[in-house]
């Protein structure tokens, strides 16, 4: 999926004027977007050198940290919103990071590829791991080390005592609110602790 619809969909979940922490902020485009269109402020966290530089060239506050080391640098409820956009699936300590996200932010917003989207199911039924526009990698070289579904996340969130305030799927830039686990390639959740 293209970046812009995802950015717009996420931006709608972020209250104007929020202090935002964007975990795995990439080139800082989303943070930049939130700052210019929703008067937000905050920081991105990124580990990749080139992406850190891209953030700096945008003038977005960026902290080069390894999320696998946790969020000890950030205080409880230090942010209005903590974002994990296409980040969760890369983290070894995904559950810990989810709890940390809830600790550091009053609101958490998570988006990740939904493995239960119907084309993925077809691939698996045919006995092969899915390779799609949203999941473009082969099973042996994918950086997505945590593969989960829209429905799986609901279970994980409940297990960690999080309150899901909103959830939907995203498909071709459109919000999918009917059968998102089947009909959308991206799962989006907004939750609080």
């Amino acid at each position: 999926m293209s970046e812009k619809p995802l950015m717009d969909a996420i931006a709608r979940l972020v209250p104007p004027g929020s202090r935002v922490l964007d975990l795995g902020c990439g080139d800082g485009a989303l943070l930049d977007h939130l700052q210019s269109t929703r008067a937000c402020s905050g920081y991105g966290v990124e580990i990749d050198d080139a992406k850190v530089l891209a953030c700096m060239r945008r003038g977005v506050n960026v902290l080069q940290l390894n999320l696998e080391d946790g969020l000890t640098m950030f205080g409880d409820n230090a942010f209005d919103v903590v974002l994990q956009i296409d980040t969760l699936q890369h983290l070894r300590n995904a559950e810990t990071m989810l709890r940390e996200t809830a600790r550091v932010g009053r609101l958490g917003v998570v988006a990740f590829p939904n493995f239960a989207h119907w084309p993925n199911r077809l691939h698996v039924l045919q006995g092969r791991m899915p390779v799609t526009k949203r999941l473009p990698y082969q099973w042996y070289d994918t950086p997505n080390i945590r593969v989960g579904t829209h429905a799986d996340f609901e279970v994980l969130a409940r297990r960690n005592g999080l309150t899901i305030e909103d959830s939907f799927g995203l498909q071709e830039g459109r919000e999918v609110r009917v059968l998102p686990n089947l009909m959308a390639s991206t799962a989006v959740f907004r939750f609080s602790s």
Partner: protein
Amino acid sequence: MIVTPQTFHFSEPLPLRSGATLPAYELVVETYGTLNADQSNAVLICHALNASHHVAGWYADESGQPLARSEGWWNNMIGPGKPVDTDRYFVIGVNNLGSCFGSTGPTHLNPATGTPWGADFPVVTVEDWVDAQARLLDAMGIQTLAAVMGGSLGGMQTLSWTLQYPERVRHAVVVASAPNLTAENIAFNEVARRAIVTDPDFHGGHYLSEGTLPRRGLRIARMIGHITYLSDDVMNEKFGRSLRSSDAEDPTATAELAYRYSTQEVEFQIESYLRYQGDKFSEYFDANTYLLITRALDYFDPARSFDGNLTAALARAQAKFFLVSFTTDWRFSPARSREIVKALLDNQRDVSYAEIDAPHGHDAFLLDDARYLQAVRAYFEQTIAGTRA
């Protein structure tokens, strides 16, 4: 870029943190670039232990040509078209009080006695240096700095600027620095100081009056320092277990060299390298200056008057920050930079932080690493944008 130092005289006494007062003093300064009309493009560079006001460019010989080996210590960072671009910024390098490179220090005459200050030169702190630098800016007619920047001890001055004169600093670039020294770090400084002080030629710090120089002590101090500025990996890569450098021209000869089975002759290349560095250093650096500057490092601790709470100490800072650390720097480790970042986050200050995976240890802050130089460039280009806003 050919550059020339200039000297500023100050006749108003400078009160020091120790309670002493420096009656009158001089600061040696270099500037690069042009101060713009609204004086919004001034950048102050703070130097570390063995550096000076000569930050960038080259000195000229009699015929106006660049003098060999006269390159400024941060010439890869600062100059026309460099990451800190002197076509845009007016950059100021200043030599700190107590130094041996021109500003008033222990090799100068004590006006009260007519003999060199030597060990009687008052102890100066990072805060004292920043006070003196602020007076320099007053003398130059500069109210606000677009940025203060420094590495290591220079980073400590930069941090201190944001606390002592928060309204005069818009941006702070703190490289390979720390909010204070750890016990281990003070310990290294103490070994270096003992090497100097116990040199029979030290004469209680009044060696100039005695016509001697404590070169042996300085050499050892420099050797210890040098070890801590490098990383294990870089030392192994550069020297490994290779034997004496006199045979380094011919690698096969080096490989086949036999041990000398001597306890005192140079056996390994690393030994001859350290001895060379120590010898060179002892020829140009003043021993009292070494003692003073390492003490300034030891004393720096802005959180001390806040019960060790760095977050409370940094609450005064108004500047936007950019911090850089290097993964293999164990003298000023990334963890120490992250402490500063955390304190700034707690205060909701604007801060960016780059942790550069460079192999060169503490020395990396002076070396060419594209990621590091590009990040500083990006920050300064954003600073301009911020300045215009």
